[in-house]
């Protein structure tokens, strides 16, 4: 970690370009060929390590496949892949004291589609890499949801046996959470955050590239855990069931480690970037709320994510090394897992929501043509959510058998979170007041988010009240809550963000009509799918079941049919994005008349974002204030000289 060098320093110390890259044999050059053989090579290396240590310790058999898969397959081989792709090249030469090429950003920009398939240090390219791969994982996770709904259309088991069903929803949820929502926010922020604070790139561009490339690894591992079978213990992976699962469960554990490492590295990068690289004049109280949101989220990630890493290590050790963290027969404590897991995973739900709050603030302010109402309180309530978020984990454990005296304090903190969240909701509404509302697609998604999230948040408050939770815990009421906050909340803001910054990212406008159809179809079918779940949950349908009592058959059929419409609505999005990216009308620099800095540069922005670091002169949302500006770009002279770069 310590070898990463900040952008600013490079330019000061790096004179010119350093030696030109040595022309290497094609099999040694960083890229996919080297990645292929290094993956194999590192696998063998891992195998050797395991065999050596087992031989040393006198274990029998010397060649045991379980540790080999964990060490060689799930740890060393991915490292080999990253090394082969070129993720570590700079650090290796640095570590060995060889001449290094200081980051001259010659790898910036993407000129052909191939440039997206290499280790690229440009935050804009990385942002696009992130968003596209997470959309892919969203479709994969969505496909699994479709299979889940197909199975649930009738009360009996129709298509899958019960174990396969358990694996379906486990992988569905894990993909959505670890490979869609969390990294999609990271991707959007990767693209716009440096632009918004007037920085030429992230603080650690190479680390940034590396964090992205951990994701496909995690994703493939997670999908493999489905085919390997073994993830049938829900995304929560509670022991002792998880330690009892087939071996594929360690694929899940390791996938979470890789995804978690990626999040931590990105969060660290965001924090350092925000703290050290803001444009002159940009005080904390002049930062756009998206930046604030990512600042708090990153703090959450850095502090909380190690806990899920720990919890998954424990499960994996119990499984592979036969330790006894959670085995009650050996004095282990099964509930310990839940405490550790939720100490991460409750903050994780805010990791999945706060960046969305940021996006909503940007969009609502811009499309209402009004300053955000109560800017400071908006930022402070993010902080309040951050702090409170660490004190509520046990609300997932009200019926778990934990110490009963924990319930009332945890209930109180849980309910308190409604207050800062309420402040945010009301401030968005107040921002609309007396505004000039433009209902373009991003605004539709943002307002859809506010209303759907309020429903999800209110059901969350019901869950926070212990007596209600005791009745509805582990029923479809929870499933409804999950989807109202995650789909109606996080996913809606992700779409708001994608539509909002699509012109900036691709240099093209999307098709507004299709985007609106997408929105309305999603909104209606989403409610038709998930609202009835509240009802069947309260009435007694438990979650995570492939078969259920016939009395719920009609509702489930209705839900399944609506969910297929919901699935189809995303096909409109995919079509719209692909076609518009290829041949949409060129986008102007500032299609929404936004004030934040990313709109001051061309669409897509020049390779190095700015020729001159912008000067921040005011607050970010001064709509309607005569002559007010947020930032100025060197008299706009530089903008004319910058060469536009095509991203496709």
């Amino acid at each position, binding site marked *: 970690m310590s070898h990463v060098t900040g952008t600013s320093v490079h330019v000061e110390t790096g004179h010119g370009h350093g030696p030109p890259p040595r022309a290497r044999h094609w099999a040694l050059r960083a890229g996919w060929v080297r990645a292929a053989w290094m993956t194999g090579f590192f696998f063998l290396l891992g195998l050797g390590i395991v065999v050596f240590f087992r031989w040393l310790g006198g274990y029998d058999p010397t060649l045991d496949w379980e540790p080999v898969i964990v060490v060689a397959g799930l740890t060393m081989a991915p490292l080999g892949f990253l090394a082969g792709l070129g993720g570590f090249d700079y650090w290796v030469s640095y570590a060995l004291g060889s001449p290094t090429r200081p980051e001259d950003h010659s790898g910036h920009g993407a000129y052909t589609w191939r440039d997206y398939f290499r280790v690229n240090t440009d935050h804009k390219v990385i942002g696009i890499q992130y968003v596209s791969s997470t959309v892919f994982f969203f479709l994969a996770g969505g496909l699994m949801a479709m299979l889940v709904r197909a199975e649930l259309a009738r009360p009996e088991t129709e298509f899958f046996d019960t174990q396969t069903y358990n694996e379906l929803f486990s992988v569905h949820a894990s993909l959505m959470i670890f490979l869609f929502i969390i990294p999609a926010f990271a991707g959007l922020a990767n693209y716009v955050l440096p632009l918004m604070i007037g920085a030429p790139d992230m603080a650690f561009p190479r680390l940034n590239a590396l964090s992205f490339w951990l994701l496909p690894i995690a994703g493939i591992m997670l999908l493999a855990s489905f085919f390997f079978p073994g993830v049938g213990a829900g995304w929560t992976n509670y022991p002792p069931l998880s330690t009892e699962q087939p071996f594929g469960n360690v694929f899940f554990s390791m996938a979470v480690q890789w995804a978690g490492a990626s999040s931590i590295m990105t969060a660290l990068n965001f924090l350092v970037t925000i703290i050290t690289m803001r*444009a002159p004049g940009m005080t904390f109280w002049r930062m756009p709320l998206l930046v604030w949101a990512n600042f708090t989220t990153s703090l959450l990630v850095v*502090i909380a994510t190690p*806990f899920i890493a720990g919890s998954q290590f424990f499960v994996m050790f119990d499984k592979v090394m036969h330790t006894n963290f959670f085995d009650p027969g050996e*004095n282990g404590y099964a509930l310990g897992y839940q405490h*550790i897991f939720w100490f991460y995973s409750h903050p994780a739900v805010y990791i999945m929501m706060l960046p969305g709050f940021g996006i909503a603030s940007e969009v609502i302010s811009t499309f209402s043509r009004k300053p955000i109402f109560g800017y400071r309180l908006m930022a402070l309530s993010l902080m309040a959510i951050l702090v409170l978020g660490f004190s509520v984990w046990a609300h997932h454990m009200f019926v778990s058998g934990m110490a009963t005296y924990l319930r009332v304090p945890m209930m109180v903190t849980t309910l308190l979170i409604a207050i800062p969240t309420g402040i945010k909701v009301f401030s968005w509404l107040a921002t609309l007041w007396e505004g000039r509302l433009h209902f373009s697609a991003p605004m539709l998604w943002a307002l859809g988010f506010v209303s759907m999230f309020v429903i999800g948040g209110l059901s969350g408050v019901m869950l926070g009240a212990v007596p209600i939770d005791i009745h509805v815990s582990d029923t479809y009421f929870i499933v409804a809550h999950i989807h109202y906050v995650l789909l109606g909340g996080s996913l809606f803001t992700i779409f708001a963000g994608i539509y909002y910054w699509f012109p900036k990212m691709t240099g093209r406008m999307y098709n507004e009509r299709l985007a609106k159809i997408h929105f309305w179809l999603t909104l209606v079918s989403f409610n038709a799918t998930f609202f009835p779940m509240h009802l069947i949950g309260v009435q007694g349908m438990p979650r995570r079941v492939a078969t259920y009592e016939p009395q719920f058959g009609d509702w489930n059929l209705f839900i399944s049919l609506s969910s297929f419409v919901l699935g189809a609505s995303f096909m409109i999005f995919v079509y719209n994005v692909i076609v518009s990216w290829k041949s949409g009308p060129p986008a102007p620099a500032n299609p929404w008349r936004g004030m934040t800095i990313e709109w001051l540069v061309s669409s897509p922005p020049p390779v190095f974002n700015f020729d001159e670091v912008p000067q921040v002169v005011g607050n970010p949302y001064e709509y309607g204030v005569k002559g007010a500006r947020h930032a100025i770009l060197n008299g706009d002279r530089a903008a004319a000289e910058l060469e536009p770069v095509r991203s496709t």
Partner: protein
Amino acid sequence: MATHAEAAEHHHGPPVANQSSRVDSRVLGMFLFIASEVMLFGAFFTAYFFVRVVAGSPWPEPPFHLPVFVAGVNTAILVTSSFTIHWALQSIKRDNRAGLQAGLVLTLALGIVFLLTQVREYSRVGFNPGDGAFGTIFYGLTGLHGAHVFVGLTLLTFASIRAFRGHFSAAHHHGVEIPGIYWHFVDVMWIVVYVTIYIL
């Protein structure tokens, strides 16, 4: 600022980012990384806490014994290495390369001795990770820490290689300072681990 003007003219690089904080970005990054490492240890300590609460009985549980003394000596070794790395850093700040090299090598040696002692302790301690939750958490915490010592040693090895190949100077010593910060963290963490596992 000459470099910058040149860069802007030829579009060879981005403009120099504004430095909006006095903190060095790499040092800040290392501190944040350490914060998340502390939390990882936190997860293991939480597990330890549960094991201990469930066990309830005296610690270590009756059939088990811990070599408190040997581990104490080991603690002393690791603490000493914190001083040697500090010395290495102070030396290079005064442009004393020999001091830097000696300090790094000493630190490396002490770290390796620590690890070897720990391996020896493992082989003699008389139980393994599968022996009840006690064995599990003992190996879990000390093993996690051992892995961190290993990472720290790797970073220090890199710093040493560079030191011997003539890098670093009074003006440029981040490559020593940052692994050094990590090494201090590993030390402090060991003291916490030692006190909780062996003494409390």
